[in-house]
C-alpha cells in the first residue's frame, strides 16, 4: 500500500455514446460519499444507537473549459445536459490512475450542476457536480 500524488487521478464519464476520459482537462476531483445513520435508540438506552442506511454521494469536478471533439469537458457536459434527464450511465474514478490493477470506483449518476467561469486574467474554467445514483462498485481497471 502506498499514498499517491493527486496528479495521477483520473475520471471517465459516459456521454451516452462512449466512456470519455476527461482527465486531461480536470484540475480537481472531489469524491464525496455518505451513508444515512438511522436512529434505533429505544427507551433505557444511555447512548444513541444507529443502523447504517442508504448511501449517498456526489462527485465535484473543476478544470479547464475545453471544446475538443468528443473528450473536451465542454463537449462532454453539453452532450449530457442535452439529454432529458442529465443521467450518466457510468462514471469511473481512479484515484491512483487507470493502469491495470489500479482501484476503480464506478457508479451511475446525474449531472445536477454545471458552471462555467471566465476570469479576464485566467483560463476559462468549469465546475460540475454529479450526484451518485445507486450503489458504488469497487473493482480494478
Amino acid at each position: 500500500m502506498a499514498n499517491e500524488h493527486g496528479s495521477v487521478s483520473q475520471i471517465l464519464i459516459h456521454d451516452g455514446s462512449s466512456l470519455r476520459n476527461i482527465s486531461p482537462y480536470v484540475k480537481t476531483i472531489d469524491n464525496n460519499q455518505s451513508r444515512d445513520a438511522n436512529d434505533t435508540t429505544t427507551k433505557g438506552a444511555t447512548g444513541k444507537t444507529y443502523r447504517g442506511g442508504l448511501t449517498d454521494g456526489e462527485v465535484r469536478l473543476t478544470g479547464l473549459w475545453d471544446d475538443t471533439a468528443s473528450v473536451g469537458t465542454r463537449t462532454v457536459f453539453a452532450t449530457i445536459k442535452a439529454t432529458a434527464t442529465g443521467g450518466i450511465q457510468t462514471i469511473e474514478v481512479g484515484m491512483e490512475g487507470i493502469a491495470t490493477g489500479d482501484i476503480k470506483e464506478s457508479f451511475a449518476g446525474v449531472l445536477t450542476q454545471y458552471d462555467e467561469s471566465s476570469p479576464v486574467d485566467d483560463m476559462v474554467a468549469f465546475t460540475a457536480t454529479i450526484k451518485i445514483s445507486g450503489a458504488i462498485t469497487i473493482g480494478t481497471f
Partner: protein
Amino acid sequence: MAINLNTAMDTLGTALAGITGLRVYDYLADNVAVPAAVVGLPQPLTYDHTHGRGTDRATFPVYVVVGKVSDRAARDALAVFCDGTAGATVSVKAALDAVPGCRVMDVDFSNPVMSIAGADYLAATFHVDLVA
C-alpha cells in the same frame, strides 16, 4: 498535450516572426540584430496543471530589444511592439495571444537597458502565460 520545451519556444518564435521588421530568436542568443525578439526559458514550467499529464503551465519571458540610436527614437521603436491595440503584424501581444492557450500577461520595463555581446539596447520584457 503537456508542454514540450522545444516545441513551445519554436511556436512562440513562429508567432513572433509574423511581426513586420522584427528579427526573432527562439533561443537565448549570444548576439542579435535589432530590432529583435528573444524567447527566453520559462520561469517556471509547472507540470500537472491538470490530471493525467493533460496540461502543463509555463511563463515564458520574451525580450524585445531595439537599438539605442537616440533616447526618443529608441522609445518610439519599442513602443510600437508594445502596442496592445495593434494587430498581429505589429504587436507582440496580438501575435502571441493568437497562439492557442497563450496570453501575454504584461510587459515589464524594470530592466530598460539590456547588454548583449557588449552592446546596450533598450529593452522590454514580456511575460507570456502558456497552458498546453
